[in-house]
């Protein structure tokens, strides 16, 4: 019996392509999922895997041909009766054209509404990945779970659009399409490394990633794609610490501690009003930069479950006391895992303070689609040369990572100096 292998559906809005190469010839034995064709579409060059098995009797296309979805490509003998099967997805890892495979406009829009805890554009995923165990909490019918498995999709990573987050076949298809377009799976993007068998060298234990861990990993892998630079500086906070000590009780009466983080949120809000590119997002597809007219600032919170980033809204319009109270409440909610998605969405800038633990500096990763993040390390009293002598001053190390696509080095240095001077001489903020 012979069967025709026709060009399968390749992804969103891809209906046709130009044959670059035919990877099999008459007489070859073709296995299921084996790439048989290299096809150039207007989005990317992709390898098309066969959904059928058999011996090639006839190749019906040649390089340079234009083929449409559904058009016959190969005639196979002994096709194992799989003619009715769903086509396997085009192999995203085989896409070879970087520039054209960049995320389109929609995916940037998607990313904007997303945040750390919401699924970012998917990270690279091996097709043979065994979908993770935790099936018990997947809201998808058995037929949909099987469909995902056939496509090599880990159903736990698919976000459902149905009632209660139910995942349908269309959601799985959308996930595959998004994955094809995602920067992580773009050509040149490193494929997930094949891990060695660690148990050869000693006992190991394998634990499933928590949702927060997985999303953090995926999100930061995607965020890493932006060209980063980190600018370091130190602020003299001797005066500020005295201010903190003398005004601490006033703030405590309102219900929170007057923390450096709360002060930094307020200072950063003023800095952002002064330097609006620090609250922007580049839209490469549209060749435009989006400037946000609001100053919502995210704060990285270390919780037992993992990293969460609640957002203080309109930080430029609030008192430090109000910010301190709100931050304490949000941090507690984060630790109790009671933060809503809304409370983690919409940030334009992030602050991450590791000073409570220690360290002299670090290079935070910009929380995409934001373009800058301020890292804070531990302050220390150090000798500073001043007026012909060393004087003890309390210095706070600051590290500003920024997306170099929209922020130039000089701007970053100015921004960070502004923050440092505001901490030293608060009046500079209102000068």
């Amino acid at each position, binding site marked *: 019996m012979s069967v025709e292998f026709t060009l399968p559906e390749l992804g969103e809005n891809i209906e046709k392509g130009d044959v670059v190469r035919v990877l099999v010839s008459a007489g070859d034995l073709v296995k*299921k999922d084996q790439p048989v064709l290299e096809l150039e579409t207007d989005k990317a060059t992709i390898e098309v895997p066969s959904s059928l098995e058999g011996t090639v009797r006839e190749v019906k296309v040649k390089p340079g041909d234009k083929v449409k979805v559904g058009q016959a490509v190969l005639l196979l003998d002994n096709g*194992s009766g799989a003619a009715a099967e769903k086509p396997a997805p085009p192999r995203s890892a085989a896409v070879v054209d970087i520039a054209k495979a960049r995320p389109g406009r929609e995916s940037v829009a998607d990313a904007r509404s997303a945040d750390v805890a919401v699924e970012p554009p998917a990270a690279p995923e091996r097709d043979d990945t*065994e*979908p993770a*165990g935790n*099936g*018990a909490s*997947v*809201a*998808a*019918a*058995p037929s949909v*779970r*099987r469909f995902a*498995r*056939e496509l*090599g999709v880990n159903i736990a990573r698919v976000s459902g659009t*149905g*009632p*209660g*987050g*139910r*995942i349908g076949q269309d959601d799985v298809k959308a996930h595959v399409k998004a994955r094809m377009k995602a920067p992580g799976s773009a050509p040149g993007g490193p494929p997930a490394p094949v891990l060695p068998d660690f148990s050869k060298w000693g006992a190991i234990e394998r634990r499933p990633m928590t949702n927060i861990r997985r999303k953090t990993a995926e999100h930061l892998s995607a965020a890493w794609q932006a060209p980063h630079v980190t600018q370091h500086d130190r602020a003299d906070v001797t005066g500020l610490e005295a201010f903190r000590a003398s005004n601490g009780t006033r703030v405590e009466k309102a219900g929170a501690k007057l923390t450096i983080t709360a002060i930094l949120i307020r200072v950063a809000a003023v800095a952002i009003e002064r330097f609006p590119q620090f609250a922007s997002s580049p839209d490469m597809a549209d060749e435009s930069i989006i400037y946000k007219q609001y100053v919502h600032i995210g704060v990285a919170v270390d919780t037992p479950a993992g990293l969460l980033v609640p957002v203080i809204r309109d930080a430029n319009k609030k008192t430090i006391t109000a910010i301190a109270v709100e931050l304490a409440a949000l941090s507690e909610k984060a630790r109790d895992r009671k933060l809503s998605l809304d409370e983690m969405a919409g940030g334009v800038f992030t602050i991450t303070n590791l000073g409570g633990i220690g360290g002299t500096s670090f290079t935070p990763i910009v929380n995409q689609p934001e373009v800058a993040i301020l890292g804070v390390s531990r302050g220390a009293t150090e000798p500073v040369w001043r007026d012909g002598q060393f004087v003890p001053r309390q210095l706070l190390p600051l590290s500003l990572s920024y997306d170099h696509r929209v922020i130039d080095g000089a701007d970053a240095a100015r921004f960070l100096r502004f923050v440092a001077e505001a901490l030293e001489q608060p009046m500079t903020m209102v000068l």
Partner: protein
Amino acid sequence: MSDTHVAVIGGGPGGYAAAFYAADLGMRVTLVDREANPGGVCLFRGCIPSKALLHVAKVIGEAEHAPAWGITFGKPEIDLDKLRAFKDGVVSRLTGGLGQLARQRKISHIQGEAAFDGNRKLKVTMTGGKTSTVEFTHAVIATGSRPASVPSLSIDSARVLDSTSALDLPDIPGSLLVVGGGYIGLELGSVYAALGSRVTVVEMTSGLLPGADRDLVALLARRLEKTLHKILLDARVTEMREEKKGVKVTIEGKQLADSDRTQVFDRVLVSVGRKPNSAVPGLDTTKVKVGERGFIEVDPARRTGDPNIYAIGDVVGEPMLAHKASHEARVAVEAIAGQKVAFEPQAIPAVVYTDPEVAWCGLTETEATAQGRHVEIAKFPWAALGRAHAIDRPDGLTKLVIDPGTERILGVGIVGAGAGELIAEGVLAVEMAALAADLKLSIHPHPTLSETLMESAEVFFGHATHVYRPRRK
């Protein structure tokens, strides 16, 4: 496919389902089993014969209750031979039918014991002593399980029964001790109680049916307290000795009356669980691995450590249920056929065929509590249901375990007459990721017991037709 030769070891609901499906997909199949026909424990010594007897027990129970409706039957006369013949007839009819289905599928059925000789060959010692060799490309181990025994209670006495010998109905003992308050002990204990035995149940933990939600078990326990002689909880049998008149049993437990501590029973049924039959001869000539608890280790596709050997059913793990085995059979065969499949049920239904029946699927309230997972529970008592009163069985409860965030139904539990039939809808709801609203908005036929599922979903929203609850807030 014609060069694929699947050897299936064990002809129970896992093994025969695998053999039949493999044959339907065009593979060559050899099925090795001790019995002349497929069926395994389920058909010969388990699910089916026990249900035949439980049906009879139910009729006796209803006849006893009938005077309340103005109908009085005489005391039942029990012809044990005829009852046994009815049960055996059911078994032979069904297993004979399976034998015919196997022949129609051209499955080579070898009656005997299989031993592995490497990962491509089986040596079969056929019933009668001859041996034969079966070469295979793929094997499916479906050897099932056997009743577990307690070494200290393993005395050589015909008065001591396990589930297999209890189903043979040797006689109707005047008194019967059931060791183990799990589903097998309660089902068989109920049968003997209906036939007239004074049945005592000893359970080691603090309640019957360990693992099941307590509110469901409570309704069953309430009825069993009437139909059984005694239920001794937090108690264990420490010694058994055969005497002339019966088996002398010593029971230990903090809350026991002295008269309960040493008793003589006509018969004792030991039902303390089941053990996997993983000691398949020659398994050490393959790369199949057996884990600590005696279960064969498999991956999600039911593949063992030897990539061309699969294992399914009781021998790979809990829950040891026929319907789990047959589902795994299809997964394993599809994997052999080269499909990307996995055993990934969201809900494996469990049914205890007592009166009332207890059934559940998906996440139980007990599991949710153990996991520290916040769930909402919606309960609908059958006392508020027309049909339950019409059949004079208001002793039932239907409950939904619901995710508060998505309102998705994560689990269903039911106790009541026919709960085992009702739970299937719960399985579908959980597997399809149905929301409480889906169940509420699906019209259920009136008057049926199935309405309790719809009404419990309405309870979740606080406006069940037949339950009044003052508004919250």
